[in-house]
């Protein structure tokens, strides 16, 4: 079953699911209209042989990263003259459609078919929440905790949705574009 056949089959079962506007290059990328579609689609994919949940991640499309939030010294190169252009920089690109949206991404692999499918879902930045996949895939446990920790996505029904990578005292979700680091005892 190549990706075209798969897409046709998914279209038959889930007419609301469409191809994503910006696909992941070389791979079939689907866009979910609403989070209610996630569990049925996942279950269907799992039955269709896509039983290997490879990756769970999310992207914050708010805008360029706020460097002042956490980079202490943009010019860390001591050989640069005073007032030189920062080595590290981050600026908005003209024409890129920044939007206050967190785009969630799952990728499923079919080991027998040697294909993978990416599933995208747009979530509002204020209260991003999706149903958990821990009931279907045990690997979702830690990966969802990671995404929760770093991106702040709430997984409904996750058995143990706690921080995993960042320290307990850290406020906020570091991978959000507007994250501002609050000084703690390890600074200076």
């Amino acid at each position: 079953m190549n990706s075209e056949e798969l897409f046709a089959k998914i279209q038959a079962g889930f007419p609301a699911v469409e191809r994503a506007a910006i696909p992941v290059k070389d791979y079939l990328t689907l866009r979910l209209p609403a989070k209610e579609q996630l569990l049925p689609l996942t279950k269907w994919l799992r039955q269709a042989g896509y039983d290997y949940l490879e990756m769970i991640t999310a992207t914050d499309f708010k805008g360029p990263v706020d460097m002042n939030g956490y980079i202490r010294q943009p010019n860390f190169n001591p050989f640069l003259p005073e007032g030189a252009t920062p080595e590290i920089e981050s600026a908005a690109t003209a024409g890129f459609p920044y939007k206050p949206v967190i785009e969630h991404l799952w990728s499923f692999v079919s080991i027998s078919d040697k294909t993978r499918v990416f599933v995208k879902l747009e979530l509002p930045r204020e209260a991003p929440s999706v149903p958990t996949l821990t009931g279907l895939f045990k690997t979702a446990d830690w990966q969802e905790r990671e995404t929760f920790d770093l991106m702040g996505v709430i997984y409904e029904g996750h058995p143990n949705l706690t921080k995993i990578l960042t320290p307990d005292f850290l406020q906020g979700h570091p991978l959000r574009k507007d994250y501002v680091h609050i000084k703690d005892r390890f600074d200076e």
Partner: protein
Amino acid sequence: MSDIATPPALATSSLKTDQMFINMGPQHPSTHGVLRIALTLEGEVIVKAVPDIGYLHRGTEKLAEVRGYHHCIVLTDRWDYVSAMPNNLVFCLAAEKLLGVKAPARADTLRVVMCEMNRIASHLLFMGTYGIDTGAFTPFLYAFREREMVLDLFEMLCGARLTYNYIRLGGVMTDVTPEWIGRLKEFLVYFKPRLDEYNTLLTFNPIFMARTKGVGCITPQEAVNWGLSGPNLRGSGVNYDARKHDPYCGYETYEFDVPLGEEGSCWDRYYCRVREMRESVRIIEQALAKLPDGPVMAPGVAKVPKPAPGESYAHVEASRGDLGIYLVSDGGISPFRMHVRAPSFVNLAMLEEKLVGMKVADVIAILGSIDIVLGEVDR
């Protein structure tokens, strides 16, 4: 396996003892870095195990968002620091997809050679430390004797022994010299018989087999459900190898086998790695035989690349499993978002469930057999 996995004595025992809580790590000789496992023990049997990670979290995914594409390769070296070549490679593959650059044939072959050499070095480290974990100190030094040679070759090639930064966007850093190739061939000739030596010394040692066979068994269904990859998945008998399933760098042109385990025990995972070293030697030999002439760097890779907006995903079969990178570009000079699908992180998650009912000594055997690198777990 089932009689080991569940402690029936505990359930029926009328003798009530206090449970003991033990912190294994982050300062412990066998947690392979700064991993902490909070163990609750009933005698020597584990009732509950909670892995605690994040001691080495450096936020490389965030750091990548303010660095140029070339600079990000330096960050990749620091994930799986015992086999950094596949890390370099996977980032370059993802970025090359965004840039629309294709590495020349010679560079592709060299990438394959480096990745396989690094796989040998990494598996040697695993074999040595797994010997120490099970109490045999000697294989460690034999493994390091050979690993040093691989690292010497890397040092000769790119000046670094651990963080290579050798694979670059559009190719590799430098070409190899004929002298270097001669050294590599010498090493291969020397290395092949050593594998049998390791098997005699450790793999088929009855005590070692008693310690690892039938311990920490993972069924294929479990392995797939846990999202395991690399030798951990193949040790359970699931034939999934990114080099075969989604070939990159021309892996489809090489002839090699994918070693599979039978019962998914610690010993199977271990033996998969030992056999993978032999396959790596085969791949390197084929690559050296067909090493094409030509440039090692594709023309037209900018000093400050600005790929068109888009998303890409690349994954390679790294030493520890399926290492993937998801890159989003907004057309700027640095990645808009980089996500690492780190195999060690995903593999480690199963520890919580697998340790229950085991002995304290088995914690080390199972943890060692998953072969994690904390730099990759925490990123």
